[in-house]
């Protein structure tokens, strides 16, 4: 049992990592495509070389893309605050790096978000109101600064060393003549955006030496072979889902014809198992090139099928094409298997979520609207009030609940507010919304516990939440016995045809509210007796009228009227006697 549990949680964790990687890269595919197009069209070897436009290529690759990835990575963890800190942290690894820092960005972005989130969870409820702005800006700023420095001194060297080792590995494999195995290093290195470092840095110089003596070299094909990437993209086209499926065909075109291999890297990163597919494709491709003795006259850059064919010497066409196709087929097959397998587990995962949601819904359906299944509240660490704009109602509700939680001595639960559109799904979350927004909130945060309130200021739900948080067990707070009608006993309630509250200049508001509350209570009790607020001189002196007054007002009433029935209460709105009267009315 425990074993099974561990397995699923490991699986879930790998899935979560995959989701996180794709979550960082997918929103930025547009930027990668923009960069890819600019590179393919305007670089020196491109279709329409343009030096001025080509100046965009370096900064976009080295700064824009990593920063975007870091930003989105931080946002995944902690919304906008996390995003900004993530981006600041990323610049620390980007500057001074020898290679485009995609990997570094994927580390620093979420790390930045996580750090500021942790910091907030410690300090946020200690910040005096009014000082939030100062706190928010300075904590993010200082945290970002520290992380950027860590990036410069720690993460940057680590990633750079890693990429150097990759290069040395390729070098060594070539030196021992096990060429196809070089792709075991080349393919992962490519996906980490080290393709140019390996291609132009190692393979091309060696290839030029070979080509100078033999007229062609297979080394030019190792990195530029578009087959493996094409296979993966085609697999996504046919067997992927969602955004990845939709964007894969376009990416395949840009990669295979345009020669910008970078566009397929995100698809690998979002499903790290895909490394297997490209490695196998690369090894197969290189093996096939060697079998046919194929090679290129010079470096094919970019790695487009057109550029490759243009560099193919006569007599090598068959070998080159065979290697590209073999690479594509092998990587396609493996990628397809991975995707299909993955899909079934994802379905399982979704099915489970639905099951949970259903169970929750069922437990809610059965009970009176004041009860939630007790288990729902275990482990709640965060309460978010969500409203439409995050400006008014949710802020009010949040401050009330925060106050109550504090008074109840609960310290480990934070209460914040936001707009429904900015809700983020996370574990141990309780979301409080108005009934109208419940559906949207549930969509946004399927794994959270949801509570709907009709009345933000005076909801009985608040006390329930507190009680549940405190004990995590259900507290039956329904009042037991009907209150005994003792005070009303001297009144002849069965005669009463109209209830009056007295309105005078000092209590206009109160009398309005008293009438409304009383009417509402009557309505709920299924009784229909008119309730009116009148001025003292407008009252009809009849025993069919029951006048509800405070002690002070009774004196004046007694002077003028003798027949009306009078109930004296200490408070026109909340006095217990009011409920007793309602119970006694016809």
């Amino acid at each position, binding site marked *: 049992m425990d074993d099974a549990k561990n397995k699923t949680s490991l699986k879930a964790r790998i899935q979560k990592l995959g989701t996180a990687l794709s979550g960082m890269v997918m929103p930025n595919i547009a930027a990668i495509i923009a960069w890819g197009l600019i590179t393919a069209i305007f670089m020196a070897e491109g279709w329409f070389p343009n030096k001025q436009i080509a100046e965009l290529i370096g900064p976009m690759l080295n700064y824009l893309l990593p920063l975007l990835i870091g930003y989105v990575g931080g946002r995944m963890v902690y919304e906008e605050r996390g995003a900004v800190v993530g981006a600041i942290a990323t610049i620390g690894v980007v500057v001074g790096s020898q290679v485009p820092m995609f990997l570094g960005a994927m580390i620093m972005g979420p790390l930045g978000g996580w750090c500021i989130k942790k910091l907030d969870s410690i300090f946020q409820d200690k910040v005096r*109101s*009014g000082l*939030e*702005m100062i706190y928010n800006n300075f904590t993010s700023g200082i945290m970002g600064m520290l992380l950027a420095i860590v990036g410069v001194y720690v993460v940057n060297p680590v990633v750079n060393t890693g990429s150097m080792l990759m290069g040395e590995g390729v070098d060594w494999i070539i030196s021992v003549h096990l060429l196809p195995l070089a792709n075991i290093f080349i393919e992962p290195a490519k996906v980490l955006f080290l393709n140019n470092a390996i291609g132009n840095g190692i393979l091309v110089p060696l290839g030029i030496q070979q080509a100078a003596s033999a007229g062609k070299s297979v080394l030019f094909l190792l990195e530029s072979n578009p087959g493996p990437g094409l296979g993966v993209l085609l697999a996504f086209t046919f067997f992927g889902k969602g955004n990845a499926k939709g964007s894969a065909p376009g990416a395949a075109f840009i990669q295979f014809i345009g020669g910008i291999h970078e566009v397929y890297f995100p698809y690998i990163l979002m499903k790290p198992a895909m490394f297997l597919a490209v490695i196998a494709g690369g090894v197969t491709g290189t093996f096939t090139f060697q079998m046919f003795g194929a090679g290129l006259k010079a470096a094919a850059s970019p790695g487009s099928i057109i550029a490759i064919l243009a560099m193919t010497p006569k007599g090598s066409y068959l070998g080159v094409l065979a290697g590209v196709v073999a690479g594509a087929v092998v990587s396609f097959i493996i990628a397809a298997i991975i995707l299909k397998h993955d899909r079934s587990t994802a379905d399982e995962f979704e099915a489970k979520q639905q099951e949970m949601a259903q169970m929750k819904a069922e437990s809610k359906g059965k009970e009176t609207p004041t009860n939630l299944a007790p288990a729902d509240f275990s482990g709640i660490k965060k309460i978010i009030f969500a*409203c*439409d*704009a*995050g*400006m*008014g*109602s949710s*802020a*009010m*509700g949040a*401050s*009330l609940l925060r*106050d109550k939680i504090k008074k109840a001595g609960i310290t480990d639960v934070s209460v914040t507010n936001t*707009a429904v*559109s900015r809700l983020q799904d996370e574990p141990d979350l309780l979301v409080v919304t*108005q009934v*109208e*927004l419940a559906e949207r909130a549930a969509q946004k945060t399927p794994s959270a516990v949801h509570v709907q309130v*009709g*009345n*933000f*200021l*005076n*909801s009985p739900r608040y006390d329930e939440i507190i009680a549940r948080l405190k004990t995590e067990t259900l507290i039956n707070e329904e009042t037991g016995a009907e209150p005994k009608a003792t005070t009303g006993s001297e009144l002849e309630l069965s005669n009463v045809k109209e209830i009056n509250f007295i309105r005078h*200049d*000092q*209590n*206009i*508001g*109160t009398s*309005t*509210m*008293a009438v*409304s*509350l009383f*009417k*509402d209570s009557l309505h709920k009790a299924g009784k229909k007796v008119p309730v009116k607020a009148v001025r003292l001189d407008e009252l009809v002196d009849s025993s069919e009228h029951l006048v509800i007054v405070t002690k002070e007002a009774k004196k004046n009433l007694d002077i003028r009227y003798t027949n009306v029935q009078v109930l004296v209460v200490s*408070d*026109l*709105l*909340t006095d217990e006697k009011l409920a007793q009267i309602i119970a006694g009315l016809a």
Partner: protein
Amino acid sequence: MELKENMILLDQAPATKKEAIRLAGELLVKEGCVDERYIDSMIKRNEDVSTYMGNFIAIPHGTDEGKRFIKKTGISVIQVPLGVDFSNDEQVENLVTVVFGIAGANNEHLELLSQIALYCSDVSNVAKLADATTKAEIINLLKEVG
């Protein structure tokens, strides 16, 4: 931020909730907190999701898009002693005696709003606000919660 007398209107009698929201919005406009267009966004927001809070309180404010019409943070108070119904449903009466018009930028309004919330969570306190005959009284009542 603190509540000022010029942000309070006593003894108003709007006939509809729309008019009540407009009163609250116009006061925000008059005091330079928001653009005219914010009022429409307040009305729209109330149509989408009622800003009726219970306890005879409503806190009309703009939609998320309406935020761009906010010039500075402000809260207006409209006292409606005879009440105005904020319900969308004919069967239900959501009577409101105090309307708080909200223009919140940068969360500066949260402190005051939270005071209002804490204070108004007791319906007897709302009654005091609804009965107040001077603006100073309202300001002092809300100050009670510290």
